[in-house]
């Protein structure tokens, strides 16, 4: 009984902190999403689920959800593949490994707004290096629907692959060396070793990296805000950009909160999927 009480005492500060910084804002956002709160209209009143029923009929929301989902799927998949390749490279015993590990982290260390501005210049149709290298002067990457979203994915991949590589590297290093030694004794080819040992043993770490990245990508904002601001024709508008515009540019806090809560629910689903994937992978 005493230990139990002591345990509660020790946990209480953490619980309190969680309640203040996590639970309260979520509850407040949900409560706000049940209101019509538009500054210009001087309108503050309870409207029940009106915002939510509008959300279900709002084509712009579904389009934003589509863009976000596509962004998450493609960006995370590419990041995992590239990240694994980098992790293998860093795990090997090449010379100058320390330098390489530091160098790989550079994109991760640069603030997204700065790197996105950098990429905007690279994509510039007149002076951009990328358009120059592609040899296509009359293609405007950020101004063409479909292509613009992929251009944003490239920026995200460039920036966060180092993070994935680092997480996977930690996973690689936790695989015991004697398993590999046994494989060598049995005369396994390098690719066989990778298929039969590295990949299965790394799977739990892959699941962790994928979950972290997906949760981060679902609320992608800064890169797109700098590159296209949701344009052309809202084809790069993600949930966060739509929520931001609704709330802070238009002053519609009720519907903006609804969009934020919807984004939160999407993240919750991803977290659930991630945790169950992790459980299955480690079994």
């Amino acid at each position, binding site marked *: 009984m005493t230990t139990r009480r002591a345990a509660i005492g020790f946990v209480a500060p953490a619980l309190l902190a969680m309640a203040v910084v996590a639970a309260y804002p979520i509850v407040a956002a949900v409560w706000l999403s049940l209101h019509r709160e538009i500054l*210009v209209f001087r309108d503050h009143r309870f409207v029940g689920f009106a915002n939510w029923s509008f959300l279900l009929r709002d084509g712009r929301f579904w389009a934003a959800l589509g863009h976000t989902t596509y962004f998450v799927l493609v960006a995370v998949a590419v990041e995992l593949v590239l990240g694994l390749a980098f992790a293998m490279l860093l795990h090997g015993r090449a010379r100058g490994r320390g330098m390489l590990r530091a160098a790989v982290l550079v994109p991760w260390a640069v603030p997204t707004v700065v790197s996105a501005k950098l990429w905007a210049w690279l994509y510039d*149709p007149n002076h951009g290096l990328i358009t120059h290298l592609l040899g296509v002067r*009359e293609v405007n990457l950020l*101004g063409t629907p479909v292509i613009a979203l992929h251009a944003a994915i490239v920026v995200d991949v460039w920036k966060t692959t180092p993070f994935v590589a680092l997480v996977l590297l930690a996973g690689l290093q936790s695989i015991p060396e004697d398993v590999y030694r046994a494989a060598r004794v049995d005369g396994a080819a390098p690719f066989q070793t990778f298929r039969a040992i590295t990949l299965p043993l790394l799977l739990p770490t892959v699941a962790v990296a994928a979950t972290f990245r997906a949760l981060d990508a679902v609320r992608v904002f800064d890169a797109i805000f700098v590159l296209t*601001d949701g344009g052309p024709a809202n084809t790069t508008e993600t949930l966060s950009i739509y929520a931001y515009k609704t709330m*802070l540019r238009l002053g519609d806090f009720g519907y903006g909160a609804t969009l934020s809560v919807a984004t939160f629910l999407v993240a919750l689903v991803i977290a659930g999927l991630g945790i169950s994937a992790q459980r299955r992978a480690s079994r």
Partner: protein
Amino acid sequence: MARLGRRAALGLGAALALSACRGRRRLREERSLVLLHQPLWGDVAPFGALLDEFRRAHPDVRLVARAVPSASDVLHQYLLTTLEGGGEVDVFVADAIWVPEFARTGWIADVSAEFPERELRRDFVGAAADTVLFDGRTWALPWWTDVGVLYTRTDVTDPPHTFDGLVAAARRSRVGGYVFQGRQYEGLVCNAYEVIWGFGGATMDGARIVVDTKEAREALSFLASLVRDGVSPRAVTSAGEEECRRTFESGRAALMRNWPYAWAELQRTPLRGRVAMTAVPSRDGSAGHGCLGGWQLAMSARVPAWKRPFATALMRHLSSHAAQETLARVYGRPPSRRALYENPALPTLALLAPIIEHARPRPVSPWYPRVSDVLQGELSAIVSGIRAPHEALSRAQRQIDRLAGESA
């Protein structure tokens, strides 16, 4: 016990010191007057001198000038949170399109008593006066004004006056075609309205904002065809003012739609003397209607009575004839006062005077920011060729009517 006592005394002392500090700060702030303004590019001294003049004339109040972001939508967001949250601001700059919104929201003070409509109509250019008048009251004082203009490389072609002339000149040009602002943002709405007005289209039908009209469909088909047919480079679909200016300055375009600030910039490049600034074109060749921009000085509705005379004096001082002359001469900001356009010492203004007389405002409505958000998406769809103009415009009209219905 003694230790505890000392600690308590220390704590009490600290709290007292803190509250004393806070008290002093509050007292100081009560005697201060906070001005929010954008940084004016170039030499900071002349603007500083303007503020110092006010300080000398009003020693009873401490003028605090704070720089805020110059991008219109970023500033709008900043003001939204500052004004709603009761932040510290007395006089601030407001974009031409915000006055009705801020008036309705109750964020800005009615200054009809200090600046009656009759006086505004007499002293300021018509379009600038229209900007600050809403519901028959005065809500701000015009500061400097802005209008969309056409720049032409005169060593390549004569300035066109019609849309057909513009297309022909761009096709004949050996240095590239026509650049305009086609990125999904407020600037695209300005560009689109200029073409719609050039085709004779209307903006309002009574209190209803109309965009799905025959003229608008024709106008935007024309705008889309510029990009589709290569009269304008594909780059315009993501270009803002600065992208256009850089393209034009580097000799890759013969024609450019932009604001007057680019004129001052162009005088510092090798293109000096080879560029003309004229009114935007129209279908029939009559002087086109440039989109009206510009900034106003507004007073926060929270300004207490004792401070109001100081705030009014500051607005009057910054928008005075002498101050506007400094802004025009040093910073290239077109004045809003009529008299300055007759000043022979400022030759650029003689070019701008007729253009500003023809300028038209975007729809005057408290819901304009919401309407613009709808328009930006649909206009971007037209320019980048995703949707046909008639489809995009009918979508826009439906959304705008829904917004208006909500407001009723």
